[in-house]
């Protein structure tokens, strides 16, 4: 029973890159599953069964993390010392906070409003979704740039974009929730 690499990239035998081919990742995931899955250890010793369970839990967590470009980027940032948990508000540009605050205020005003507010909400949803898509495109470019240059400044920019994206995603979710609730409510 060889020890399982705790680093997700190492577990998959991959270079630590931000852009990954999803099909290649899936292929590796399937082949590692065929090696570690608890179903293949049912008749083995309790120690081996525990090993299979632990290894597969790590494998599944790793696949979940690396499959999604955003969680993958968070993971790589953390590896490189850009840990989101530690940074607090220090790395968030004040303009972004102002912008998010204003957007939230606007959203709050629309809440509980009438038909007109609904139209405005739908408008806001479109706008936020557009912002999110812009950030995604920006991230894609920066991923490629980092993989090419391994420049830590790019990572720092990615950190900023990811923070911004979180805020925007929250806004999108909030608006969606609001729109669903007003739709479900009896007229």
């Amino acid at each position, binding site marked *: 029973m060889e020890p399982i690499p705790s680093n997700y990239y190492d577990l998959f035998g991959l270079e630590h890159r931000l852009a990954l081919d999803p099909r290649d990742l899936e292929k590796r995931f399937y082949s590692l599953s065929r090696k570690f899955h608890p*179903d293949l250890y*049912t008749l083995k010793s309790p120690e081996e069964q525990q090993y299979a369970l632990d290894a*597969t839990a790590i494998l599944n967590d790793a696949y979940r993390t690396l499959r999604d470009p955003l969680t993958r980027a968070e993971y790589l940032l953390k590896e490189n010392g850009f840990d989101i948990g530690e940074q607090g508000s220090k790395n968030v540009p004040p303009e972004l906070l102002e912008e998010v605050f204003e957007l939230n205020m606007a959203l709050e005003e629309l809440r509980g409003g009438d038909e007109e507010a609904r139209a405005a909400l739908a408008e806001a949803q479109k706008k936020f979704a557009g912002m999110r898509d812009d950030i995604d495109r920006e991230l894609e470019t920066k991923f490629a740039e980092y993989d090419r240059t391994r420049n830590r400044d790019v990572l720092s920019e990615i950190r900023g974009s990811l923070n911004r994206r979180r805020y925007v995603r929250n806004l999108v979710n909030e608006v969606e929730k609001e729109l669903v609730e007003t739709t479900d409510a009896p007229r």
Partner: protein
Amino acid sequence: MTPLQIDFGKDQQEPVVGIDLGTTNSLVAHMDLTHPRVIPGEDGDRLVPSVVTLTRGGEIIVGNEARKALISEPDRSVYSIKRLMGRGVEDIQEELKLFPFRVVEGSEQVIRIKLGERTFTPPEISAFILRQLKANAEAVLGVQVRKAVITVPAYFNDAQRQATKDAGRIAGLEVLRLVNEPTAAALAYGLDKRRDGIVAVYDLGGGTFDISILKLHDGIFEVLATNGDTHLGGDDIDNRLIRIALEDIQNEWGEDVSHNGEAVQLLRRAVIEAKERLSFVPAANIEYEFKGRKYQREITRELFEILIADIVDRTLGPCRNCIKDAELAVEQIDEVVMVGGSTRIPMVRNAVEVLFRAKPHTDLNPDEVVALGAAVQAGILSGNVEGQLLLDVTPLSLGIETMGGVVSKLIHRNSTIPASATESFTTAVEGQRNVLIHVVQGERELARDCRSLARFDLKDIDPLPAGMARIEVRFLIDANGILNVTARDARTGKEQSVDVKPSYGLTDEQVEAMISESIDRAAEDFKARQVAEAHVEADTILAAVEKARKNDAYFELSEEERREITKSVNELLVVYHADDHLLIRSKIEQLNNVTMKLAEMMMNTAVKSALKGTKI
């Protein structure tokens, strides 16, 4: 006259059976050399109705016999027990309005059901069904069966899964794996096809609805997303029909029979018959007779569809959510597999066809496909089926209750299992020795809207200033979809003891007590079966001897030889009711020996006359 012995070979490994423990019917299947096969019961029926009766003699009967008793002994019988598995009293108030469960007053943490003068928990009742299936498998396979794969609805939560596993343990079965029903169906379906693609499994059972979307690739069955409703099924359709019939009857007879268990059971049977016919004909009659009075009503398919439209509709929301969670467009789904008896209803098929824009597959028997899949999974686990691997998901998010009753999610729904998350906890006041963690399952933001799983008490924490202790808690959902929690002190690295208080369900001690009780019973059951088998053999040989005594050959024997035969017959008759199969068998053996010569003589005569007759 020795019965045919089938030698299964001593070195053959222990069988692992696959069991579909259904709301309405249960099945057991096993893996043949290449294919899964359903094992029929003694009566030849492949479906064992999930009905349990405690007879007036104190005996437990299961299946078709119990189903008959449901009408004559409604107070001693129970059906659809699956609806109560792993649930608390407050969860089941709706079911109690519609189902005649006799819940014992004051059963809080664990529901207890009254059957005659005794009470049982839902896992114990399910264990009776499992034990019957185990016996059916043992009778056909000729060896003891101790290991099984049991299927559960994909949308079952932790407590419901745990209850199912407990039922297995109580029945004397080591449950090697709980498999989600739609996933099992996909496994049975995909076994021969060996086709790659995206498959949706729509499973409308007796009491539960599941939808799962899987990606099939080179023997890997990866579940992408699952959704469902654990109390939606064919039972609900029956209840609709029963309600209108009861109203009619009240109008026609001027009598409310809804509180008469026998009357309702008979009516249930009548509406089910009509419902089943309606899948094939445009109109069917509910034909009902109770205590000499008759009620008849024609139900057209049109009326039927109006009655059940909202039930069918309720399955579509989970389907849409499931497609969304799988991050797919409807066009990307290649095939839809239908599972569960209710998918025979044309309206259900149409709704599925419209939603998925694909003709649903119905070539596998929707009643059997889950059990067959369970057998395939049993084959995978025992190494008899190679190349296939199931990667399933957890249907519900797992979280802990935090400030203000808000849930902080640790493992999200549709995560491939096994899945884990680690969270650290600390103390709020100096010298605090315990931290209580409330774990919930569900998608809602507030803990009170989610399903409470358990409270974990981290005990004996080293007394330290507030916030200094650091306990790392690992939440692990295993391949059965069941939560395991372990904790360690991050400073010392030493294992931290955790006390689990399940919110619903049995504690380990309770299960242990039920197991030891059932082991005694299992031994009894096994013995009873062996006595019964010895009786069959004794009957056979006694009948044969009786017949031979009229044969000419018998009179050619010496008086001594005839006396020996008479003596052996009498001795066998004496021990016949001794309840000791070994004793019976020894007397059978003895009778066999003393009639050997007679048998040979009769054989010779028979051969001679045969030769004469054919004139070679």
